[in-house]
């Protein structure tokens, strides 16, 4: 055991971290061997980000010892940590959108050598070398903002390599990637490990990185609750350790056979975005729309709610035509839309939880031009309770809530308006496993009350757990219609990528 510890690249012992009375980490041992990939799993608030901050020197540990490459560090700061070869790739990649690929890769290296002058040839050489190491071809002169997400991630990896990374920490590396891109990332990780570079994945979407990892460490409430070889874990056991409870594997509830058709979409088209979209949605049905990033699924969702004006096509709801390209008309027809990026599109982050729910119901509580504040707030409070939003204070700003609870607030706003059709775009993006299951429960509940639900998602288990029917889109067209409950995850993944 001790020889293994001597060889470890990272060796943390009995790390405790307290913030003003709150214990974020308690007595955690954590080791990473050279060339080893470790999966660090845990829900939001489990302490995994704190652990990463301690390794990268952003936060000091309250107690415990830190050894990097055999050397003990009483004081660690980001510069010392980076010099020792610890590189963090944040979820947003921290790239410069306005600079070229070559410069993005070489920037940190050139700064660390205290170079005063900028040498384009040397820059390209550094970048070329890093790209060659992982066997990837990206135009060195392209501006990073023009690259797709997967390539941005590769640029970030190359930047870490150019700075002679011994350990690359990747925060949520697979959230924005398609199945195919995940496979390529896995290949690159295997290659890095052969060269002796260690990797830590910080993630709550785990299945994808499990097969390239040697070890899994699970944190819950600041404590290490499980550790072992990756082969001994599967999605189910990971979820169990992360949440401390069993989250059952579920399938959609059976819908009523005699349900009437609620929404009818006919020939919806928009040049360059989507083409000839046709479907019917029955009341009480959950219908998924999926496809790779850029397939047009988000544009279709927005068009259904009038946020994108289609060139052609009609939307009818319960026999009435809904004018297209007009979100207010869609809203009057009682169509609800919960956007993918609730932070920028869906919620007023600095406003109170209560107001965020109440905003959708101003009209209903207005008489003679005056607002009945008490009635409005009472109704909002009721909805927050029904959706089990965990908030100590409904007057607190929405941004103080966790991702799962924010999503519930966004849902509560729409539900208070009694929608007939609810469009949910990526309802569990950035939400931890426990809350995700709760959100799926809510979706199933709503459907059984007769609301038609359109779920836009690329989270395959989510689609399988909730949808009666799944439309697959590719290049702006619906290419497949699959029955939920009969299709398997592999089958769905195959239809998506092929």
């Amino acid at each position: 055991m001790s020889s293994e510890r001597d060889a470890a690249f990272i060796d943390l012992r009995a790390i405790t971290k307290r913030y003003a009375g709150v214990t974020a980490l308690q007595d955690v041992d954590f080791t990473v061997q050279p060339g080893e990939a470790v999966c660090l799993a845990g829900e939001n608030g489990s302490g995994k980000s704190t652990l990463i901050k301690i390794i990268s020197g952003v936060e000091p540990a309250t107690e415990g010892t830190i050894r990097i490459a055999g050397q003990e560090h009483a004081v660690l700061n980001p510069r010392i940590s980076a010099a020792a070869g610890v590189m963090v790739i944040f979820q947003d990649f921290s790239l410069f959108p306005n600079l070229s690929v070559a410069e993005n890769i070489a920037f940190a290296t050139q700064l660390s050598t205290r170079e005063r002058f900028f040498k384009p040839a040397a820059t390209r050489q550094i970048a070329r070398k890093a790209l060659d190491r992982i066997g990837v071809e990206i135009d060195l002169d392209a501006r990073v903002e023009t690259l797709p997400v997967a390539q941005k991630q590769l640029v970030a990896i190359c930047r870490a390599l150019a700075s002679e990374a011994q350990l690359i920490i990747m925060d949520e590396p697979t959230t924005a990637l398609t199945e195919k891109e995940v496979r390529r990332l896995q290949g690159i990780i295997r290659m890095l490990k052969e060269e002796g570079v260690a990797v830590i994945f910080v993630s709550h979407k785990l299945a994808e990185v499990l097969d390239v990892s040697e070890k899994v460490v699970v944190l819950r409430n600041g404590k290490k609750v499980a550790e072992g070889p990756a082969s001994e874990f599967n999605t189910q056991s990971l979820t169990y350790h992360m949440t401390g409870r069993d989250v059952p594997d579920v399938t959609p509830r059976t819908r009523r056979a005699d349900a009437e058709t609620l929404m009818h979409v006919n020939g919806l088209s928009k040049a360059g975005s989507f083409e000839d979209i046709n479907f019917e949605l029955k009341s009480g049905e959950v219908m998924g729309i999926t496809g790779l990033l850029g397939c047009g699924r988000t544009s279709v969702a927005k068009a259904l709610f009038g946020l994108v004006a289609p060139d052609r096509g009609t939307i009818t709801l319960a026999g009435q035509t809904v004018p297209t390209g007009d979100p207010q008309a869609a809203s009057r027809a009682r169509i609800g839309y919960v956007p993918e990026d609730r932070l920028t599109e869906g919620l007023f982050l600095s406003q109170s939880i209560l107001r965020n729910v109440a905003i959708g119901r101003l009209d209903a509580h207005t008489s003679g031009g005056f607002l009945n504040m008490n009635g409005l707030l009472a109704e909002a409070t009721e909805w927050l309770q029904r959706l089990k939003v965990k908030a100590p204070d409904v007057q607190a700003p929405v941004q103080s809530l966790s991702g799962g609870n924010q999503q519930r607030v966004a849902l509560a706003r729409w539900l208070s308006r009694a929608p007939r059709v609810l469009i949910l775009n990526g309802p569990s993006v950035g939400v931890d496993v426990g809350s995700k299951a709760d959100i799926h429960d809510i979706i199933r509940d709503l459907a059984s009350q007769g609301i038609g639900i359109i779920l836009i998602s690329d989270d395959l288990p989510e689609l399988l757990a909730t949808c009666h029917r799944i439309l697959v889109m590719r290049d702006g067209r619906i290419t497949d219609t699959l029955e939920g409950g009969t299709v398997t995850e592999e089958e769905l993944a195959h239809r998506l990528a092929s």
Partner: protein
Amino acid sequence: MKRWLPKDFWTRNETLVAGVIVLFCIIATLSDPRFLTITTVSDLLRAAIVIGILAVGAMLVLVSGGIDVSFTAIAVFAMYTSTVLSLAIWPDMPWPLIFVIAVCLGALLGAINGFFIAFLKLPTLIVTLGTLSVFRGFLLTFIGSQRISDLPPAMRDFSRGVLARGTTEAGNFYSIPWAALALLFVIVLTWFILHKTMLGRSIYAIGGSVESARRVGVNVKWTQFFVYVYVGALAGLAGIIHGSVGRMADPFSLVGLELSVIAAVVLGGARLIGGYGTLTGTLLGVALIVIVQNSLIVVGIPTTWQSVTIGLLILLGTGVPAYRAKQEAARAG
């Protein structure tokens, strides 16, 4: 693998602005064959020197992700104060020394902006709106509010210095003043800083993403501080040239010009969100603004239409690329 033309050549602001300039010159020449002569060109160049130097500074600030509206106040402060100083202590002071004083004064005032922005982390627009008022008020209250037409002789000597002069066959006089060299110097120096030093690349990096810059180890504070000091120094230089060439130290001049200058820079493709801006674009933007201000009359548009034209050009010049970008984004979603 160099291309003859950059891939985005046809969608760049620079191309659009250059196109408008060429179009304008063609129309102007058709309506008045004397338009495209060395006389007009030298007139336009003279008019472009001060705006050009100021615009290069404004561009640097935009690239770094900030905005500066105080540079005209700095320019007039530096110009007037150095003139008063010279007249008071050494009327025969040689012009290079007067220039150095003006540049240093500008840098000093820029450092005040830089202090508030880089070290106290206050929003750039708020800070420079404040200092615009303070610098100008301080100048008029404590230094003087009289126009001085009796400049130190050395400044007049400077304004008489020409690189080239002559008379065309048609009998029109033309000249290119020394001050044109100052603009050239500023362009070359700024180009060198932006493209050949890590400091310059750091300015672009900060404009692209401050947080990322911090994470890769850019010294954000000092880089920002440098930007405002440098812009202040350029403003001081532009100010003293303005005074010398105009042969008058007028404490009421220049202020009010800042929006036209920023307009020129934005026309040239610099973005208010930071990270984007080129010298070529900035100079083309300046050229277009100067042409509109001076030559609109040639194509038969009354001068009262000047600001309408400039406004339309800005809407067009920034609107077209923004609209295209939005369409691209919609397609990608």
